[in-house]
């Protein structure tokens, strides 16, 4: 018999996600794992224990699993938040949304006063000018703050910078004759300061504090990300597209290994500029370096771009506004080869597909690969997969694929999808959670933080209500129940990571990972699901109150 200490937590209600024992009042924890869940009487049989009443008035759920996020969410909080919607920072402070360009400028002016040196860059993120009418943000706006120091702000989409004149000057762009679709020109023939797409953004990035190298291996950023996880009830979070160079892996091993690090990070190696053979070898090498709190060895693949950036690949009839079809990021031969090798070596691959043509191609490639290399239970997952139709979900089901859909898009960009990108019909069926479930496709849902804020309960609210920022309901038939939504952010996401045997439900043998809630998500009105208050988490039996994060 083990001599390790047993703690029995009493809770107002425990939602286990285990259908054999869906609810309970007590959970016993030993060595960071769940010894049992049930009544106090049942659990006493395990022997001497401490009874912990800290959660007597709280609701416990399995710790939330964010199946598609990026640790860069923690990095971005080093910059000034300028988004349209309220957002909580890692310290728990809620930054109110900026309601006008003047407010954005005023907030930057305030931050500018805190900077010591005169030429230090001033950086912001989360800007979303579509909410400020037709007027574009121009360099003159930011020149009001300073013409001496470079100033740059990343848009909420992550695909656009707005900068001041000084930043353009440093990047060699404050000149006539620039002719590039990513550089908007003013009436004077000079760039307005709006820079779209990776090429134009790279030119100014290092001058405005968005230095790629610094972003790639950001220890304080990882710590901030972990604090955000605690505030949102997340005990396992993906870092879905990391190049994972050696120095980043050692940093992540060291930081996640610290006694008080509160979250399990699942970091996927980004497949880029590599032959498939080499990518699979790298993944296998990474798998060997994995620890309990740093899971490695899976691959993330990009098939196409984004819908709002018009770089997603759409099937006929294409974009609603007539924009040309998007871009392939990886050729089909390469995808097919990667799938085949990964199936052979048991390496998990998650593929980013936004447009339905990208989804179709990924399905074709996996279909072919599985004929060459049959592999039961591969759990290859389509990430975003926003425009898949019913037939594609049925096909995914037959091929054993999982979907991780992106309901947050409805809230943040649903109106644009309806009016501009894909039009009413496809906007209404986007992120078809109900169809996925009806087709038997294992389902997760995600935030893609920092693209939208990390917060599985908010994402669940989006899947349940399908509301846009303007209050439009997009596709009532694709709404899912609160119970189903809670499943997707726990066991559903764990399944896509092949971690459902360890995580995702509260039952004997699993990790003692809990989201600790002040309100009961099954009692609160479904339209209030996002307002459930979160006390914090328990991760491997360790308590992490949000208030202390």
């Amino acid at each position: 018999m083990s001599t390790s200490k047993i703690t029995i937590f009493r809770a107002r209600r425990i939602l286990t996600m285990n259908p054999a024992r869906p609810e309970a009042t007590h959970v016993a924890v030993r060595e960071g794992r769940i010894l049992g869940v049930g009544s106090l009487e049942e659990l006493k049989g395990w022997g001497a224990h401490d009874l912990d009443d800290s959660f007597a008035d709280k609701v416990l759920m399995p710790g939330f699993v964010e199946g598609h996020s990026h640790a860069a969410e923690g990095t971005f909080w080093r910059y000034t938040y300028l988004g349209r919607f309220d957002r909580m920072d890692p310290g728990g402070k809620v930054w109110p949304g900026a309601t006008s360009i003047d407010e954005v400028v005023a907030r930057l002016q305030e931050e500018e006063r805190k900077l010591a040196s005169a030429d230090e860059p001033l950086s912001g993120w989360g800007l979303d000018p579509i909410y400020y009418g037709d007027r574009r943000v121009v360099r003159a706006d930011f020149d009001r703050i300073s013409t001496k120091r470079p100033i740059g702000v990343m848009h909420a989409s992550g695909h656009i910078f707005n900068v001041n004149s000084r930043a353009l000057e440093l990047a060699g762009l404050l000149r006539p004759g620039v002719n590039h679709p990513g550089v908007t020109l003013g009436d004077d023939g000079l760039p307005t300061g709006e820079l779209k797409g990776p090429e134009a953004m790279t030119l100014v990035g290092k001058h405005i504090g968005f230095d790629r190298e610094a972003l790639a291996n950001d220890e304080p950023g990882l710590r901030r990300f972990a604090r955000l996880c605690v505030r949102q009830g997340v005990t396992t979070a993906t870092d879905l597209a990391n190049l994972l160079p050696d120095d980043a892996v050692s940093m992540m091993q060291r930081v996640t290994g610290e006694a008080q690090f509160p979250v399990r990070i699942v970091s996927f190696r980004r497949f880029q500029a590599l032959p498939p053979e080499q990518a699979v070898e790298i993944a296998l090498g990474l798998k060997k370096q994995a620890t309990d709190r740093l899971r490695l060895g899976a691959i993330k693949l990009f098939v196409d771009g984004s819908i709002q950036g018009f770089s997603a690949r759409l099937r006929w009839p294409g974009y609603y506004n007539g924009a040309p079809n998007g871009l392939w990021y990886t050729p089909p031969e390469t995808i097919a080869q990667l799938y085949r090798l990964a199936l052979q070596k048991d390496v998990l691959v998650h593929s980013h597909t936004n447009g339905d043509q990208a989804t179709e191609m990924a399905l074709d490639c996996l279909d072919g690969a599985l004929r060459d290399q049959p592999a039961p239970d591969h759990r290859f997952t389509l990430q975003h997969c926003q425009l898949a139709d019913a037939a594609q979900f049925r096909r995914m089901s037959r091929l054993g694929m999982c979907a991780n859909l992106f309901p947050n898009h409805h809230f943040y960009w649903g109106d644009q999808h309806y009016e501009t990108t894909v039009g009413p019909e496809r906007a209404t069926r986007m992120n078809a959670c109900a169809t996925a479930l009806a087709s038997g496709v294992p389902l997760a849902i995600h935030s893609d933080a920092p693209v939208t804020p990390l917060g599985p309960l908010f994402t669940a609210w989006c899947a349940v209500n399908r509301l846009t920022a303007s209050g439009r309901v997009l596709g009532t038939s694709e709404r899912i129940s609160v119970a189903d939504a809670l499943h997707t952010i726990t066991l559903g996401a764990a399944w896509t990571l092949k971690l459902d045997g360890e995580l995702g439900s509260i039952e004997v043998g699993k990790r003692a990972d809990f989201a600790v809630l002040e309100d009961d998500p099954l009692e609160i009105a479904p339209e209030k699901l996002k307002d459930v208050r979160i006390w914090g988490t328990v991760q491997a039996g360790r308590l992490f109150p949000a208030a202390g994060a």
Partner: protein
Amino acid sequence: MKGNVLPVTVVGGYLGTGKTTLVNNLLRAAAGRRIAVLVNDFGTTPIDRDLIVATDGGTLEISGGCVCCSYGSDLMERLMTLPAQRPDVERVVLEASGVALPGMVANAVTLLEPYRIDAVVVMADAETVQAQADNAYLGDTILRQLTAADLIVLNRCDLVDDAARERTIAWLAQQAPDARVLPTTYASVAPELLIGLRDGLTPRHHTTLQAPGAPDAASLYDALELDMSPDIDLQQLGRLLAAPSTGVLRAKGMTRNAGRGIAALHVVGRRFSIDPAPPGTAPTKLVVIGLRGRLDRNAISDALQKTSSKQETPC
């Protein structure tokens, strides 16, 4: 940056069209010119082993002073750091990935002041290009690649019969009317066409314009050498030479440009640019290369005349 602009040849085309072979051919023909070859990745051995003299992480040193670097996820970053890291480099050959749009790649390069686009070269496989253009997934990407080309290298012509080749050339002329098509095998193209004419050297088509691997290569090209009057209107000359009817594949000439020192005119197919020449450069004749039998001597002479006659006061 003036006088120190690096010409960039973008090489695009789908997987398996012969981009890597083309790049290796160019490196073998570099003849002392220091070329930086930028490739997406090193995975599938981008450079023939016998050409590599040293390997250092993301860089391969090539015999003859050339260098090959991978850019992976960040082409812009690589281009931004290259001039400082390799000040000896005279020219860049940029191999785009199989699904990249070379027109977009070229456009991105124009954001960087130290560079100019010399040519967009797109490879096509004579046997498969039309089928690929019909592919539901890839068709529009293939066509967008082809329409961005200044020169289309129609490779693997040995795998199709003459009639099929001509059909494909006619089809390309329809799909990409502005591009010049170079039929070839083993990706062999006269290197001058792609990496430029060397200053002060007159090409003699039977030697320097030889395309290795093609037995009848010597008869493929014609080269002309013509006098340019000083203060010729280079802008206008470039426009005229770049018109499809001239049959010009490449042209280069240096002349005094309206009291602003020596300027160089570069024409590659439909594209032309005018550069300030490095200090100390002397004016040269205009050198023109085209496919034998396609080069319109009269049109070229006319162009020279027209652009010279604009000159009102003799100096």
